């Protein structure tokens, strides 16, 4: 079958099978390997992407379900060479260690900020509770999201 969707700002169309997961389509067909697989059952959040602005586990979504949707992966969140404010804050806060959870973490946080520009610490923890990180203990990630929210509020 053919699926058409908007991927990181560009309209794409590709043939796929009915049993292919969205994560496999992104990684294998579009070579967007920033989307990571950690558990395959929607527990770890490493494969998080944005689907119509919502953070979803791409291991639990069939490729066909992307039809007509807008998909953003970690490769599409920056504005060309200019990093997304979340990406900059992740760097300056030391919110990255091994980096395997980072793409999913950034995307979950960005979904939060687009829905709730002024999140409390609890809101942030809740938003990333589905993204497991074994390295950082989350503290610097939470700080990065908090600072980004403030930065974006000041801009508006």
């Amino acid at each position, binding site marked *: 079958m053919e699926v058409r969707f908007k991927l990181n700002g560009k309209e794409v169309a590709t043939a796929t099978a009915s049993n292919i997961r969205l994560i496999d389509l992104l990684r294998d067909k579009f070579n967007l390997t920033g989307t990571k697989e950690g558990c395959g059952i929607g527990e770890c959040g490493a494969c998080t992407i944005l689907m119509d602005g919502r953070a979803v586990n791409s291991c639990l979504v069939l490729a066909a379900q992307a039809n007509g949707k807008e998909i953003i992966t970690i490769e599409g969140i920056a504005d060309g060479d200019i990093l997304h404010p979340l990406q900059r804050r992740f760097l300056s806060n*030391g919110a990255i260690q091994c980096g395997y959870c980072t793409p999913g973490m950034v995307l979950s946080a960005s979904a939060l900020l687009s829905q709730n520009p002024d999140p409390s610490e609890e809101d942030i923890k809740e938003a990333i509770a589905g993204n497991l990180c074994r390295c950082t*203990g989350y503290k610097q990630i939470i700080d990065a999201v908090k600072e980004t929210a403030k930065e974006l509020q000041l801009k508006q």
Partner: protein
Amino acid sequence: MNKGFSVVGKSVIREDGIDKVTGKAKFADDYKFDGMLHAVMLRINEAHARINSVDFLEIENNRNVFSIISSADIPGAKKVGMIKNDQPIFCDEKVVTPGDVIAMLVGESEDGLRPLLSKIKIDYSPLPVLNDPKKSLDKDAVLIHPEAGSNLIIHHPLRKGDIQKGFDESDEILEQTYTTQLIEHAYIEPEAVIAIPQGISQGVKIIGSIQNPFSCRRIVAAVLNLPLAKVRVQQAHLGGSFGGKDDTMAILAARAAVAALKTGRPVKIRYSREESILESYKRHPYILDYKAGYMKNGKIKAIKIELLADGGAYTSMSPFVTWRSVVQATGPYEIENVHTDVRAVYTNNPYTGAMRGFGSPQPIFAQESLMDEIALRLGMTPDEIRRINGYKVGSVTATGQTLKDHDVNLITVLSTACENTDFAKKWKNNLKKKSVALELSKDSPILKDDQFIRPDDNIKKGIGLALSFRGCSLGAEGMDASAAYISIQNDGSVYLDCGLAENGQGLRTTYTIIASEVLGVSPDKIIYLELDTGITPDSGPTVASRGTIMGGGAVKNAAETVRDKLTALVKEEFKLPADDIISFTDNHVHSESEGTLASFQDVCKIASSQGMNLSAIGWYKGPNVHWDEETGQGDAYFTYVYGCQVAEVSVNISTGEVYIDKITAVHDPGTVINRLGAEGQVFGGVTQGAGYGIFEEVTTDKGFIRELNFDTYTIPTSKDISEIIPIFVEGKESYGPWGAKSLGEPTLELTAAAISNAVCNALGKRLFNLPLNLEEVLLNIKLRPADTKRGSLV
């Protein structure tokens, strides 16, 4: 000299951060090659069985099967190991634990191969299964590896003073038994590796999620019967390891390499989470028997310790893991008479090996629980008993080593932790608070307003601490040396590399900071190269929190070698007096007499025009240590670090839930080089330690693991931990770069023990078995499902 650093100790953005935050960083499974094949593993549903025959007839000619790889295809060593060669690459004779792999199917796609596994006919005879480590050494116990003659992997004795005399002279004796559980590393990236044939003259190249490329190379070369130089191992970005991607990865790399050489095509193996948990090694569960004799004034006179570690089906790192335990089992306390026996044994359980902490979190849980209990019996506070017994300068450890030549900061970290948390006052207050008891009126069954239990009454507050010393680097485990490579280009930009591996901890950033500090160039001028065994000299494994002290020492040495050459050149070129002092800062070179001389770039240009070699291999070798295996006496490690963590918890007495309100982590890692990285180590290590303390556990049923994915194996999420406060006490040290030592493991080893002491402070009852999950806290018992399914039975 902690003053005057320009980069050291500052917050510097990760060297690999930009690639990781944009999704560009390539992890092992992100690599693809033309003609690449995939492999799937053949296992049987047995924990212990003799394999009589394997019949591939039904699938041999299947179009999805490109090749079948088994033990017969191995040109060299069929069994390997980090210490003892007892682990088969393919188990063609016998499986000894459910993760064991009998053979491997190779083809174009995993999906095409998996359905074929059930069509392979395996004839096997089940053998008795040994799961209880306490029964491993029984005379009638089944032998896991009959050729070893016994199920004993290792026995480390330690004898100091006269244990009987010590007990005889003690005022009181306390005996307790503790247990700790099997846990999983739970790196978020599952294992992946690709072997690429390089032609007859070049051997094979391995790219993978490999913690220790040099150990991996040694094993792959032995299996292929190739010289080391013909096996080139390149590390991909590594999605977490924590000690876990060592033996398993070497074996996976060897399997892929055998298949690659047989098929002549690149072969990738990648594991699902279930396979990862099933086959990879884990943290040793321990049974810890402690008997302490002490005086009424708090002084510990004698301690007898017996530790039993379940090594599971293979030796792996058990001998070294348990060696660290024997050195550190008394904790950081000076005790005259010590009698310790640490044993690791084989069982049919999942095998156990290296994991962050490496044989220290288990005895720390026991010894710190014991110290608190003695304090309670003597009417002392936990910090008082530790001040009496804790190491000071000149103290003699259980192994007979005198602590000197560095800041023995044990009492300093303890005091800092107590002052920052108002420890003693809170600890006493919590003890005073009585539990809520319901007193019903005789006249009326109706509760009055003040008799209702408010939700808050269910919550009890507790505070507890744990204290440790930890030997830095490998100690008497083995040769301890590391290399670094530096090459300065004629425009002043710099290549840097080291034989130790970036496992996510930020080692490349730390090394960049060190080179930046020595050469005075900004960190962004330094390009860090990939770790490739074909380029960098062997630096030993990236373990034992030795990255900063050993590799950092090598990087500093390499950078200083080139800087010294440039210093001599500058003096000659600018006709400066021989005793002038040349400094390198702000991308410029300065002299004390003349001020700024030239830019670093211009100096490099002059050097290059004169044909000067601006590259160097730096080397750092640890001083010799020694060890007597019969008595457990010797200078075990060349230096130590000290740490104290205070846990503040809320315990729900109705549900048994432990909530961690705050962990204050005070560590002396020597000089802090990479500020953001160091804080990250504390946040991450404490969080892992908390998971170990309150809920993580891999349980098994006849060797079969129940928790094979993150739905049942739960690790801490963003919502599980509150505040973590890192505090660094930077003690003086003569080893390592500017006296920088170790931090990664100390951050983890203390947390569970501190939490347990806090829970005891809250409840007034002591818990002896990790993890402190709901049923342990509420019922003092671990509930287990009857088999590998869900649902509980006692």
